[in-house]
């Protein structure tokens, strides 16, 4: 079982590169059992969504379109 600290690194890495099969396996196993890391992963996704939104609306960041 990998640690939460290690999971935070893997979740971040997954936004930048494909994870290996082994990494995906351990990550999934951990996320299945750990609510906090599940929240962490959701937060990373939320931040990426916010950055994408920011990058696509120059005149009006609170884009309601």
């Amino acid at each position: 079982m990998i640690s939460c600290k290690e999971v935070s690194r893997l979740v971040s890495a997954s936004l930048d590169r494909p994870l290996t099969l082994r990494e995906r396996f351990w990550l999934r196993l951990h996320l299945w059992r750990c609510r906090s890391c599940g929240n962490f992963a959701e937060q990373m996704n939320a931040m990426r969504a916010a950055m994408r939104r920011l990058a696509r609306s120059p005149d009006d960041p609170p884009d309601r379109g």
Partner: protein
Amino acid sequence: MQRGGNAVTEGQDGVIMDDGLLRALRPGMIRFARLQLRDDELAEDVVQDALMAAMAGAKGFAGRAAFNTWVLAILRNKIADAIRLRSRSINISALAPEEEGLDQAFEALFKPNAHWSPQSRPRDWGDPEDSLQRDQFWIVFEACLKHLPENTSRIFMMREFLEFDTSEICKELAISSGNCHVILHRARNALRGCLEQSWFDKGEQTC
């Protein structure tokens, strides 16, 4: 994609003859460029450049949405060019004290066994879309972005805003891919912590 409704009439000179359109775009472009470049003067220059390029090339845009998207694409390219030009004169490998501070703050989130300490457990942020719809969220978000130390911010913005591949970031800044991942992880954690503290604790009670 074109939207009906507010399409600007296209004369023989194209949509660009509507001066107000560019004037309306400028403040957002400046804010953007400043956030990315952290250099107000350079940001002005880059936006000026992008506007000139937009004026020179604007023909045949039938709608405001298509035009905005196109001008933004130009701006992003100009910012990327400015970063590429500048990056060679920056020693990214030197770890600034603020960056070390971020690492210490990250380590402090965990118990000795490397699991979250009870008070640091990441919380449920709920549906992010609720936050993205609020003006106040974007003020907090930009403030948190500006809080990142300079080098950390630069790499994070290259990755998340300009959407460079990590391999391209490594090449441009002459850093190892391992280092790049460390810096991105550091940036994301700092941003996450800032948002949780400044927005999700105060603005949105999720539990």
